């Protein structure tokens, strides 16, 4: 049987990679991908905890399903925003979006 900590470490690794993606990518869509990876990593945590804590109570799984839905909702709004910005500025590069600063 695989120890719980392995799953948690895997999840932490994926979360950190997603995080790095948010900070290193210039493309708004790629940043969004990084955020999706972060959410996904959390889901691994949730399901693993569920399995190792008390598999008869389904709350971890329910939470995971809800996270799916939230992620979907966020992506819908996020992509709509990207499209809307693109129409205005003809760019998806977040670094170009620096009218507002200081």
């Amino acid at each position, binding site marked *: 049987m695989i120890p719980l900590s392995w799953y948690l470490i895997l999840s932490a690794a994926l979360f950190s990679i997603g995080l790095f993606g948010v900070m290193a990518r*210039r493309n708004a869509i790629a940043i969004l991908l990084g955020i999706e990876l972060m959410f996904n990593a959390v889901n691994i945590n949730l399901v693993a905890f569920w399995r190792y804590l008390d598999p008869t109570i389904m709350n971890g799984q329910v939470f995971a399903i809800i996270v799916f839905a939230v992620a979907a909702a966020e992506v819908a709004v996020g992509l709509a925003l990207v499209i809307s910005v693109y129409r205005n500025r003809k760019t998806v590069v977040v670094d170009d979006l*620096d009218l507002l600063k200081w």
Partner: protein
Amino acid sequence: MLFSEATTTSFFSLAPWLVFAPVIGLLINIIIGGRFSEKLIGAVASVASGATFIVSLLLAYSVWVGHGQGESIFLAEWIHVGSLSLDWTFRVDSLSTTMMLVVSGVGTLIHIYAIGYMHEDVRFKNDPSRFRRFFVFLNLFIAAMMILVSGDSYLMLFVGWEGVGLCSFLLIGFWFEMDTLARPSWANSNAAKKAFIVNRIGDLGFLIAGFLMFWYLGSLQFDEVFAAAPELADTQPGIIIAITLFLLVGVAGKSAQIPLFVWLPDAMAGPTPVSALIHAATMVTAGVYLIARSAPLYNLVEGAQSVVVIVGAATALFAATIAVGQYDIKKVLAYSTISQLGFMVAAVGMGAYVAGIFHLVTHAFFKALLFLSAGSVILGLERGHHLLAHAHNGGAADHDDEEEVRRTEPAEVFDPGDMRNMGGIRKTMPVTFWLYMIGSLALVGIIPFAGFWSKDEILLDASLKYPAVYWLLSTAAFFTAFYMGRQIWMVFFGTARHEAAANAQESPKIMTVPLMVLAGLSILGGLLNLPFKGFHNLGHWLEFTLGEVELLGLDPTVAGLSTLLALAAIFISWLLYGRVTLKQADRDPLKKPLGFVFTGMENKWFVDEAYKAMIVDRYTDVCRFLADVIDSRFWHDWFHEKLIVGTYNWFSNTGLNYYADQKIIDAFANGLGRTTKYLSASVRRIQNGFVRSYALSVFLGVVLILGYLILK
């Protein structure tokens, strides 16, 4: 309803009207004053202030009838949290009614005077709305001052304290847009800012004292604080000393004592009635009132009392020497005010509360008189100058092109407040001359004018308790007589040094009549508390609040010596300034014998410069260090080139010009703000507009917090 409740013997329930009356007055002027004539606006404001005076009289009467039994009048709940409960409660006792009477009485006279004075101002500026604004501010001041003196707790006192500070700020800067060559408009608003900032330092002291009180004594209400204080003094005397000294910082700010007195001379930029009311007679004495009110605290710690006395006496002498070297008629009076406030602070510091309050009252009379007369002189000169300007234009100019005239005339810079432009006004403005003489004699302390009795009482107390302070104060009194003599000779005697002075015109009745009332008070004010058995009226009156006070008789040695000193000083001043009329370009005759000492007096002993060098510049250095080393070197390599450009520009423009162009006052008032602003301007470069950098900042916070939790 409030009126019907008042029975024949007790009018205590009227106390809230002290504040309501001026507030109603100012509301009337704000809301419908736009349609009023000038006279009506002034009348409304004066009536409001007069009503306050009448309420004060009734309250004083009630206290007197009740054999000094004061009362606290509850108006409304304010703040109740935990153990702390503070209410809007008015405290009516002999001390507070004395202050009420002085403030509202002198205030009302000055309101009336201001109708005449501001009328001229409006005529010069073509803006009727400023007339209304002025009186609204004045009424607001009366209301705030009433809260200050009638508050039943330190918090309510503080509300009034801040309120009068705000009014002072608004009124000093009243002429913020008046641009003349003699005094550019920024000087007015800078003077206001300077007053505000310096007062903030004092207020911080007051606040800290308040926090300490609440912390250790559990209350801010006067009686509760005083009741709890003796016990604390036994266990932790250091706390009481800290409280009293922090209060002293507040006093130094508001009452212009060393080291925070620098704002008061600049505050003369405001209209003269303001200088008389706020910066001579009433607001600046709030500090003296605060110490007298806190007498039970100060009586507990002798060490703190000595500090107060030393600060007061040192201020009295220091400011008096500066007054000797001033040329502006109002600046002389301003330094004189600081000096006299020093007398009062020294008096209340040594426990001679009656003497201090007595001097506060008489000083309110004669200093208001002096300021208002000085205002009359200045206006007289302006009228004379105005007449000349018209004469030069062929006498045809109408009032319509007032602005035109003002714009064309500055070929010659004329300052109507400069004593070097005056001389011989005795003949052109006789009424003002006699009023001014009365005020001066009262200030100098010639028997039997009011100032003699009150100053003498302070000197007598000092001679008994602090001999060294007695000599300091006597020297200050000598200088007082000297600079007043110098002023009288320069302004009123001899021959005119400027055409304007030769053509000066007497002021209208509405201005001179209130002055006559003040003059009468300056002559007779001594009756309040003559040093003879049976005449200690004020002493007995204040005893109700302050407890047993020592009532002193007249000491012929002290009285004689001080009179002698004053006469000697006046004689010396005549030798220097009165015997021969000075020419306009003449150097001051004191300059030769005194040399650099006089240069020091002339330049206010370089206090402003010293503050700039010690505080403002050091602060600037620290900011610059932060900006330059931390910010520029650290962030720039990572961030934008803009920073280099910005820093470079800042150093080349602001940095160099800073020393080259700016006036010291400017630096003092703006230094704090500007450097903070610069610091802020450089830090904000981090906010570079990139989403990714923002995410990085969030992330950095996360890592730090987790690191803290793990390593803890």
